[in-house]
């Protein structure tokens, strides 16, 4: 019995020199982060929501009612997209990752922004299936604002429950739309070019991004909801 075989690298292993290159290491880190947050699956879901929006607009899935009712399906799909983005902030590693992950805030920031952009792209493509109430400008405003609510709720309740923010916001919005309120904090109720609504949505998105970047989602390490 010898120990000769122990030192040999397994077939297919990355040579040390290549792995040590900063660019490759960065890419590997980013990829591991994406996988740990189930971002590939999230992208699939966002694409599915884009397809759902396309189908809803193309085949004119309507529900009875006035303007508020006409917006229900697109806004619900936007809510779903925001919910998916918020849930990707859930991290399974807790303290070890916080203690050693020097690049963690940047990864969180990049992932959240990139996913929001991807969601906007998917939904904008879906909007090509017909006439989207409010157009793509309203889509951008509503999506970013709702994503902000999701990121904020992830920071408070935990990444796994980040979806509750957009859902609660949308339920409140639905009532407000029916009641005819016009506060800019309920941005889906305002016209697409309304500056106040855009500012409110942008503020909420910025607050959500800042909270998730600096604090991360409330997960293991700080007491969170049962996993």
């Amino acid at each position, binding site marked *: 019995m010898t120990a000769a075989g122990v030192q040999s690298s397994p077939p297919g292993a990355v040579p040390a020199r290549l792995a040590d290159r900063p660019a490759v290491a960065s890419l590997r880190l980013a990829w591991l982060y994406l996988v740990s947050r*189930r971002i590939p*699956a*999230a992208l699939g*879901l966002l694409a599915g929501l884009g397809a759902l929006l396309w189908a809803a607009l193309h085949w004119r899935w309507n*529900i*009875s*009612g006035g303007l508020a*009712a006409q917006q*229900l*399906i697109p806004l*619900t799909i936007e*809510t*779903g997209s925001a*919910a*998916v983005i*918020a*849930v990707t902030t*859930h991290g399974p590693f807790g303290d070890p990752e916080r203690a050693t992950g020097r690049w963690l805030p940047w990864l969180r920031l990049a992932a959240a922004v990139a996913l929001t952009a991807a969601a906007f792209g998917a939904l904008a493509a879906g909007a090509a299936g017909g006439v989207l109430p409010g157009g793509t400008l309203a889509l951008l405003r509503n999506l970013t604002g709702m994503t902000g609510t999701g990121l904020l*709720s992830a920071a408070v*309740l*935990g990444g*796994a*429950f980040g*979806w*509750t923010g957009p*859902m*609660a916001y*949308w*339920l*409140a919005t*639905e*009532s407000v739309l029916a*009641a005819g309120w016009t506060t800019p904090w309920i941005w889906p109720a305002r016209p697409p070019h309304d500056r106040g609504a855009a500012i409110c949505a942008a503020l909420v998105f910025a607050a959500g991004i800042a909270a998730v970047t600096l604090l991360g989602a409330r997960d293991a390490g700080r007491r969170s*909801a*049962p*996993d």
Partner: protein
Amino acid sequence: MTAATDAPVRHRPPRAGGAVTLTAARLLRIELRRSAMPWILPVIAALFWFDSYRFGTGSPPYWVLRTFWNMGQGRTFLDFAPFVVGVAAWMGSRDGRRGTADLVAGAVRPRWAVQLAAWAAAAIWAVGAYLVFVGVMFAVYARQGLQGSPPWWWVAVGAAAVTAFSAAGFAVGAFFPSRFAAPVAAFGAFLAVIVSDQNGFGDTSGWPLILPTNANGNYQPVSGIFYPYLPDLPIARMMFLGGIAVAALGLLGLPARAGGAWLRRAAAVVTLAGVAAAGTASGLARTARLTPHGMTIPALHDAASDRPIGYTPVCAQAAGVPVCLNPAYRRYLPEVAADLRPVLAQVAGLPGAPARVAQVAGRYTSGMFENQTDVAVTISGTPPVLRVPLDEFNTLPSATPGSAAQFDQELPLLSVHAFVGAGNGAGTTAQQAVQAALLQHVGLPFATQVQALAIFGLPPWGSEYLQGLVSGSESATGPGSPGGPVYAAARRFAALPAAARHAWLATHLAALRSGELTLGQLP
């Protein structure tokens, strides 16, 4: 000596049933402590306050009206549903996400039983929170002195709906264990509820009546005040929701790792029973029909539910005529008496003049609201009684700006309309002219009558009568000022001395009511 004496003492083994109960109770206690549902309750509480409670506060102080949004249209259930589904899916996906499904499959308890314990914990939290939140809201309403009776059947339907959605969400999580199971389940539940809910608004019969958010024909202002809330539809809805819950929980026991063969067979039976219950309930909802007491389902109907709620009317005097209302409407008695006083004074002593004013129950309609576009104020009986269905009025005096003024115009208008015998139409031109003249003398000048006839919710004859009163002066921006032959005759009649007007009416009222008089025959 027998061997029996040497035999060791045999202790009676503990009863298997008791051990199972104790184990199940311990398991449930652990799951209750580990459930994620309490974490979401603050979010639901905030939404419940904003959406379910706050949006109903402007309604008149009647249980049926104040709870129309949150119970009749199921808004409270809607505030719970997506969150309960999502968190239940999170709990249901626990073993799969952690990769411990195989581990727990080999444990002492069947996997199905363990899953049922986890679901029960989530459901207990959710239903408990629902009952507590609704209980607090109802306590606040009770302190506000709401009239009528609380809609307990609808509370029960909401609890059944929360249970069903928790079961459905748990099943989604168990079969698709992923971090995305919760948002996708919540999103799907919300989309399903909101789309069926919105589309069900327009359907006054058939399967949409099974939806806990459909108020058509079953939740109207007479409910809980003149007639009890009919339990027919709520029972069918609970059966439907219970069936969904049972079917979803039965599905959990079907996979091979859920337990032994007998257990899986039992799960299959449970699933089929759930599907059968939901299907039967849906079929029962299709047989629902509108009756004077609300929406009934013949197979579930109890005739005892049709008995009107007894009451002792509260009365006041107006021009010597008793005006009596249901005690639930006591707060409006002074306003009603004040509005009717000049009308009753004008017609006092004339044939067919009301000897009494009585509030009567409105009629159920197949739609969401009572028949507010056909408010039937009538005069009938011997001695004649002016019958006023106050609950059908579009607006009762409230804190809403303009509501009192609108009511003060609408009540005399409808009463005088009934007195001249115009019935459900605009009446003959002679009736229109006499009506306008009488209204002029009860405090509604001709110009004000034009405004009053534009009140939203007046019967369809209002617009026809309005055209008669402003004939020739209509413009693109509105009805214009009073003019035309009806208005001229009304002015002429109104200008008569009170005694002459009274004497003419005493002589010609029967002919006027029968529609025999023409405009030219007016003095």
